[in-house]
């Protein structure tokens, strides 16, 4: 047998090669700031984008925030133009109120099935006037405002909804829950957009790549009974406090104690709630310290020099560009930093909170009488990650977040070819890092999408 014959033989022994056509489209899962950035980058490069968002509006966590650190820009002022751009972009197919049902196929050609839940309002007809909201007799807790305010059973998801279409809460609505034959919104709507008969729809499409950017959750502090969250009204979470600070939030931007309704004189921030805690999550939430500083500076601006602000911290981690200067700014504004995490928060019947903290640098036990305690709840993995991991065959790392292919060299890719990760679903991070990873993941996806064909091995 000569060399040529041997090569021929080996080639026949090797698994047969097959090639698949690469679809010039991409599925983006999640419509937060990361998903928005990924979609805009890919759509501007000429690829067709299917942006799937579970909530009735895009915007995600960033839409809930009051301001962003370290520039102190208004969060929604930065986000809104991008949200509108997504909604109006010819290359982006925005699917809100939609969840992923099934994913099959290989990199370059994934077959995706999504299910669009009914919102009982026709997205094409609704003009966004909001006439239906005022007539609705049913009050429900406002999820966007963390339950601090009530909204109606038919309402916009948030004041900044994109698309600007109302949604009916089918569990609370009198008609949809079968309690009463109410038709108040139906009569109020001039555009004839309300449709109680709307059914869920399934869509199928093929995409070349998938980018997962579903974001992360925030720790529920009621699991830590020593801090009194849920027991004492004046102990609130940092996301609730963001809504309180927002001018369009439940208090119109005024800082008030939930129990007495008065302006607080002493505010205490407690860091590292739920994170850096082996009972719950061991990782550092990456943003808590800076969120504390930002909120403390905002309190100083809103309440003036008379307010006493204390930050109880474990380590102060100000690691990014402009962050150390931001920390310095907080110190120069008279924010008091206490090195030590309070062991417990106690309350008197009138709502005054007693916070005992052992100051590490002074070696003394200090007691604070606070009017308001803000808990800096950490960024934690979502419960849905288990389902997502199964759906996309993407593994999870030990901290519960989705696992990237390589922590140093392939931070944008999942171990599955053609599936990319961006934003806080890969690990806790701030807005700037999320946006950076979004553009990185979009670029990596473009490498795959720009090929005409992709070889796949058929074993």
């Amino acid at each position, binding site marked *: 047998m000569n060399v040529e014959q041997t090569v021929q033989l080996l080639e026949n022994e090797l698994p047969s090669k097959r090639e698949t056509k690469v679809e010039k489209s991409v599925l983006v899962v999640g419509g937060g700031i990361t998903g928005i950035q990924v979609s805009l980058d890919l759509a501007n490069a000429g690829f067709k984008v299917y942006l799937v968002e579970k909530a009735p509006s895009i915007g995600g966590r960033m839409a809930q925030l009051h301001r962003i650190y370290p520039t102190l820009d208004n969060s929604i002022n930065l986000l809104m133009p991008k949200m509108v751009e997504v909604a109006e972009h010819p290359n982006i197919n925005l699917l809100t109120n939609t969840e992923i049902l099934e994913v099959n196929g290989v990199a370059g050609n994934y077959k995706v099935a999504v299910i669009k839940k009914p919102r009982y309002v026709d997205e094409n007809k609704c003009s966004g006037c909001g006439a239906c909201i005022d007539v609705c007799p049913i009050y429900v807790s406002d999820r966007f405002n963390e339950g601090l305010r009530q909204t109606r059973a038919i309402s916009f998801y948030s004041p900044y909804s994109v698309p600007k279409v109302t949604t009916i809460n089918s569990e609370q609505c009198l008609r949809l829950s079968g309690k009463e034959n109410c038709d108040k919104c139906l009569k109020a709507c001039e555009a004839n957009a309300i449709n109680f008969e709307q059914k869920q729809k399934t869509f199928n499409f093929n995409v070349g790549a998938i980018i997962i950017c579903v974001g992360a959750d925030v720790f529920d502090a009621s699991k830590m009974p020593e801090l009194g969250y849920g027991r004492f009204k004046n102990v609130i979470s940092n996301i609730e406090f963001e809504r309180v600070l927002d001018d369009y939030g439940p208090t119109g931007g005024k800082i008030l104690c939930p129990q007495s309704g008065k302006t607080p*004189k*002493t505010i205490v921030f407690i860091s590292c709630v739920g994170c850096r805690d082996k009972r719950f999550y061991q990782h550092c939430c990456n943003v808590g310290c800076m969120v504390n500083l930002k909120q403390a500076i905002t309190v100083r601006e809103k309440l003036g020099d008379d307010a*006493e602000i*204390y930050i109880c911290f474990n380590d*102060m981690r100000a690691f990014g560009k402009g962050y150390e200067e931001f*920390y*310095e700014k907080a*110190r*120069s504004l008279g924010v*008091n*930093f206490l*090195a030590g995490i309070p062991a417990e928060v106690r309350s008197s019947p009138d709502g005054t909170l007693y916070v*005992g903290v052992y*100051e590490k*640098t*002074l*070696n*003394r*036990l*200090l*007691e*604070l*009488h*606070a009017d308001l305690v803000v808990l800096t709840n950490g960024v934690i993995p979502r419960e849905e990650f288990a389902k997502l991991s199964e759906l996309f065959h993407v593994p999870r790392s030990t901290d519960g977040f989705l696992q990237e292919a390589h922590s140093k060299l392939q931070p944008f890719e999942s171990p599955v070819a053609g599936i990319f990760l961006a934003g806080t679903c890969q690990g806790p991070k701030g807005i700037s890092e999320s946006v950076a990873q979004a553009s990185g993941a979009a670029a990596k996806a473009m490498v795959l999408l720009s090929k005409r064909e992709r070889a796949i091995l058929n074993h």
Partner: protein
Amino acid sequence: MSLTDLTLMAKPNGELYKKVLGKLAKTELLECFQCSKCTGGCTAFKLLELIPHEIIKLVKLGFIENLIESGIIWTCVSCLQCTERCPQRASPYHVITSLRNIAVERQAKVPEAYLKAVSQILETGLMQPIEKVTTKKMETVDREKLNLPKIKYPSEEFKAIFLKALEGI
């Protein structure tokens, strides 16, 4: 004030804090982030347990009353190493000096050595008394023996100015 020190049962004093601020040239001198570098190199800490970073923290929180009454602020030897080395351009030395000023104003107990130094200046114009020196041959000598020039004692004019300055504090 909503803060209490449960270890010493002390309450912060906002007025005293404002007084300290008034004596400092800039608030930057108080902007400490508790790296404890000052204490690490403090001359007085090694002998007398002065903790500069703790003093700054106590002043910032308003626990000034006890500081002024304690003798610890008088142990600073004014070597200025803390001011030189501070990564945040804070200065425990300046803070301690302003605390001493307040202590004198409130007629708190001032260590004898400081009072001695004042009378020494009045008498001789020098911080320290002129001492005799023991040589290697175990001979005790004074300036006269070493043929050093005589020290001029301060004029009456200087004394008047110095006493006036002391009254002003």
